[in-house]
């Protein structure tokens, strides 16, 4: 058993080496794990880490040349500080309130007006976070401290807006994306021959060397091809969009990966109470029926490993999985 044991069963587990990091991006090497795991982490960092972004705009006055809906779209794209969002904000859908409240949203207001002859540029810094809010201030990284341009106003034009920022994930809308891009690479020397490099005359001349090539041994001339080899070292480059620092993106990514896996394990281990795992909302009765029938030991739905017990839930960790235990050690 094999693959799982070699990766997870051993005491080593996935490892992360930070190669380079600053406030906006981090280069890491993820090793000792398989491709699916690495890609899952990548996908979660791209799309499933919650951040805060302006979601509702109440336009009181907009006499600028930009129509309301475009102004709102622009405001939505402004990155807002989302550090430790999970401790501070809940999703509106989980909240008791009707539309939004302090528990599930942050209110920002924008009031700008041009009175002089020269045009006024409204920047992200002009967004004022409501007093007492713990997060949601616009991210400003430029040396002038202005942030992104929202709009320009001519004499007499005015903007008076109330923006409701909510928690969300990039799966729903790109404005909640914590990362601009996540670089992802493995096997810089193409030893696994996953790719067949196309070249006209000389591959070495036409193809640039990977920037991670120095991190791995170059292939030895005449080395026999290992058919069984699988990628195990992954080079990730996290580029933050601004709302979260890269280290938090990584931590959050791991956390959400854990959570997702935990949900899967929980669902499978508590077969009789499947309802808890998925929430009570949208499943069709047919699915209920099928799941119920599975209680008798429908082999087809179970993973082949250890009958009903997956390798994840097998140890009887309960809520705290293997990863939960070691999560602190990683950071």
């Amino acid at each position, binding site marked *: 058993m094999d693959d799982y044991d070699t990766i997870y069963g051993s005491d080593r587990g996935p490892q992360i080496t930070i190669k380079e990091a600053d406030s906006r991006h981090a280069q890491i090497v993820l090793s000792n794990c398989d491709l699916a795991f690495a890609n899952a982490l990548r996908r979660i960092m791209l799309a499933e880490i919650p951040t805060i972004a302006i979601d509702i705009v109440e336009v009181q006055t907009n006499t600028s040349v930009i129509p*309301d809906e475009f102004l709102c779209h622009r405001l939505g794209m402004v990155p807002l500080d989302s550090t430790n969002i999970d401790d501070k904000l809940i999703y509106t859908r989980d909240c008791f309130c009707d539309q939004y409240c302090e528990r599930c949203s942050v209110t920002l207001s924008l009031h700008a007006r041009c009175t002089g002859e020269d045009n006024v540029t409204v920047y992200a810094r002009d967004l004022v976070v409501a007093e007492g809010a713990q997060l949601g201030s616009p991210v400003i990284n430029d040396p002038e401290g202005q942030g992104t341009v929202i709009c320009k106003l001519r004499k007499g034009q005015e903007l008076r807006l109330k923006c409701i920022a909510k928690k969300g994930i990039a799966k729903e809308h790109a404005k909640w994306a914590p990362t601009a891009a996540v670089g*992802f690479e493995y096997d810089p020397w193409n030893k696994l021959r996953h790719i067949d490099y196309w070249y006209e005359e000389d591959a070495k001349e036409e193809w640039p060397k990977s920037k991670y090539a120095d991190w791995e041994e170059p292939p030895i001339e005449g080395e026999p091809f290992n058919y069984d080899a699988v990628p195990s070292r992954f080079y990730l480059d996290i580029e933050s969009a601004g709302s979260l620092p890269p280290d938090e993106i990584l931590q959050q990514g791991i956390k959400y990966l854990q959570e997702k896996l935990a949900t899967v394990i929980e669902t499978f281990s508590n077969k009789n109470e499947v309802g808890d795992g998925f929430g009570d909302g949208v499943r069709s009765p047919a699915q209920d029926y099928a799941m119920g029938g599975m209680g008798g030991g429908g082999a087809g739905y179970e993973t082949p490993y250890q009958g009903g017990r997956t390798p994840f839930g097998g140890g009887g960790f309960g809520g705290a999985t293997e990863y939960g235990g070691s999560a602190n050690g990683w950071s």
Partner: protein
Amino acid sequence: MVTAVKPNTSSNTLRREDLFRNPPKDKSAFPALLNAVRPHIESFNVITAEGGLLDLARQDIGVKCVFDGKRDGKWLGNKLSLRIDKIYVGKPKISERDKTTLKREIFPTECRERHITYRGKLSVKLGLKINNGPWVSQDREVGNIPIMVRSNRCHLENLAPHDLVERKEESEELGGYFIVNGIEKLIRMLIVQRRNHPMAIIRPSFTGRGKSYTNMGVQIRCVRPDQSSQTNVLHYLNDGNVTFRFSWRKNEYLVPVIMIMKALVETNDREIFDGLLTTKDMEDTFLTDRVELLLRTFKGYQLLTRKENLQYLGEKFRIVMGVSPDMSDVEVGKEFLRRIVLVHLEDPRDKYRLLLFMVRKLYALAEGTCQSDNPDAIQHQEVLLGGFLYGMIIKERAEEYLESIVKEVRREVQRGNVLDFNNKEHRTRMFQRTSGNIGNSLEYFISTGNLSSPSGLDLQQVSGFTVVAEKINFYRFISHFRMVHRGSFFAQLKTTTVRKLLPESWGFLCPVHTPDGSPCGLLNHLAHKCRITTSPSDVSSIRKTLVSLGVTSPATSPLPHSATVCVQLDGCIVGWCSPKLARVVADTLRFWKVEGSHNIPLDLEIGFVPISRGGQYPGIYLFSHQARIIRPVKYLPLDKEDLVGPFEQPYMSIAVTPPEIVPGGSTHVEFDPTNILSIVANMTPFSDFNQSPRNMYQCQMGKQAMGTPGTALRHRSDNKMYRLQTGQTPIVRSPLYDEYGLDNFPNGMNAVVAVISYTGYDMDDAMILNKSAHERGFGHGTVYKTEKLGWAEERRSRAKESRKAYQRIGIRQDWLRTVDMDGLPTVGQLVRDGDAVAVYHAIPKEGDRARPENKVFIYKGSEDAYIDEVRLLGSEGGDNKPMQEISIKYRVPRPPNIGDKFSSRHGQKGVCSQKWPSIDMPFTESGMQPDIIINPHAFPSRMTIGMFVESLAGKSGALHGIAQDSTPFRFDEENTAADYFGHQLKVAGYNYHGNEPMYSGITGEELHADIYIGVVYYQRLRHMVNDKYQVRTTGRISELTHQPIKGRKKGGGIRVGEMERDSLLAHGGAFLLQDRLFNCSDYTQTWICRACGSFLSTTPSVRGSNFGSIVRCRRCAVPATGLEEEEMVWEDGLGGKFVGGKDTTVVAVPYVLKYLDVELAAMGIAMKFNISP
């Protein structure tokens, strides 16, 4: 050539930004753009200018006469002469009835916003003369004519961008169009026969002119100084005779050519014989025989002297010409010659000489010593400019106006009324009776493009002269002004010869920019450097120069034997010379004209046709007239710019590139090979790498892109406008892009494009859009729609009600959601289908019993829209009534949707098939995901290599932060584009060929092949599913057939036609067929009589429903005698009592079957159906 020229790598962002913020106060920053519309504006300017076309036209119209005699006796009565002394065209101003306004100019933007016409007053100064008294003048206003924007009658003439912006125009407003009812219209340029040049023509239809007519002729389109034209044709007859044909007021006339020659000058047969034949020709029996016959057959007319001929002509054409009754026949004959025969020449002697020349050319054609000229080649064509046509129409209308006065006087005289021309009151009464509104008819012309003219203006079409200058995007807009049409007459022609791209067109008409389909090859676009002359060049000293070069003047007689080559200037014979000398003369003239010496204008066309065996008829043909197409090329001997016309070009050696110059052969070289392309065709990057039809497609699609129609959108109220919200400047573009200032009007977006077959959703020209890119604003567009709501207080006397601004009584609460307290919509408000957009107070007409109430205008549209602008429009006529109409501009957001059309700039269009989540998109090692995925199968068969090169160039441009020059013909086999950009990519650390390893977004696995990924400029086309989708379950049906109606707007269905039916049959889809053709169509249940098998005889019974069915067959029933049992008797609706006819049943049939039965019954045919079981 890559290394030779250092490419310009700046995208000129700062310059553009600066120009945009501070529009220049002196002159436009983009003169090339102004040059593009110059022919339109200049041609309009020359009409109205001092001594311009209108002035010349006025002179040509001459004097109209009318007499007040009763036509009984010999005395004609007093003579009233009428003429036009002056025609004025005024600038657009507020009506004089408005007494309160101080600022009286009307600017174009006001007309656009108010949906009115930009027009200026047209007035004429009439001259009247009684008998031989003095001329008395009187001013008359004859309506308002549409004025061309930025012409010399427009308030925007010569305004700098800064001032244009002040007047709510685009900073680069070009003008060249008219505004009629708020719509921008332009008169399109038409190809017509080259003027004043006799053309040898072989046309089979010539044989139909009469007995013994052959298919050969010599045709000349003569143009008067006022630009109106008259075509004359010489026909060759089988027996060698020649007749002169012309058409006058849409009727054709044939006259023996000798009669015209003899009427023109006092001459004799000998002189004509000598004029037609040189000494050398005397040995040619073909010629001598024919000339002899020509002269002999004319003997039959017994007309010898000039006077006799004139008299004869005058007598025959007196009625046709409609001349004054007091003119003698000789005078009429002279008038005939002046107005019909070779009208471009004044001197009868010149006309006579040209006629001789034409006859000679005709004989040469008949003999086969010269080739027929191709009327479809641009060599024998010129352009009819909008302004000239406009002037011609004004002329004709003015003449008609004079004639209508004459007619009115005549009518008045016939009624027996006494008219005292000296009495001012009588005169004004006269004028008031004549409807002299020239303005209306010109407005009609511009708005419909239909020409209603008694003479036909020597044109081959009566409609399609104007087009709407659509502002879908700027490419489309500018293309309208560069468009030349061959004429709608040719559109119906079965043959395709007129559509062919001929080598003569090189450099004049763009070989790429023509639409596919029906207008292909007929609707061409001028090459971007090509110009059109709008005023005649100064050729006053050319005759002297020619003589000094050794050309024999035609006045010298007899002609020397050697002088066999004719020298013509604008269709006037100015001399003769020997063939040897001809070449010297032509070459010297060209040298001098480029040099600028000897007072020879640079745009003079020196068409030297050398003597050949059976080629074009030789001669030196000089052209200096208007409406010629010319283009700049470099003259090698002087290394200076020469202007070349299409007549001379076939006989010149112009190298395309400097390496192609043939020493001793080439005289000219192109400034740039891209000069042959139109503006739009030049914008296709690397078009020389593409398969040629793809460039044509791009020219079409570039004009359909949702781009930026303009920057002054706030001041426009077009019916429909498309706008791309997130337009960008292309990374890959040619320097011409900046020269034409196209950065002001972005037309697309730079997109990261991966060429990969991924998920299968990119099959068959579909493309996958990155959902995150879409969410960040990629391709977001807006459609603006304007709706006009009538608000007039008293719209028409026939209107049922008068409308007043909203009053507060009886307002419904739900209206107030979208409508303000004033009854007008709130700006910025979102409206849905059925929402109120305006509320008005309707007051019924007197006598109507209804009470006044508030009524509402409803927004009808399936899409949600925002109220963008609301305009309250007052009345136009100067009565200052406020708010007679309101115009609402809606803004419909159109983010890209599945089913929307996109295209690159290489004719590669595709439909968005999915908005794919970005995590599932493939990505490169740096984590970059494509915005767009297209399928590799889009390339092999289409061969749009230019798109690959653009992708490479775009990628390296993005990496290095430079704009890439994409001018075609810059690379060659030694310096390939792939190497040039590959090198740049390599420097940036990328693969030389633009490929990158990519990873599956779903599994994270590296894809087996490396993927071609780069940056390509994508256009979003205006075809969007939201305007096209058609779906129906149930809905409206046709009243007559009960079948679903057609039409998307009405919620109709899509027809399952015969072919669809056939394929369903072939597949055995019986159930589906039944469903489509019957159940979902006109399924009806109806009664039928089982006994007689008729639908029509069944009728419901009113009484007596004891047995079974309540519908009986009237035909099978018999009238009750009164003896039957009560239960057996039934009654129809009319009270008739019957017995029997109970054997009826209900069947399901298509409703049309019943309808058919009824129709047949109306013809006395009965249908009988067998019903079983």
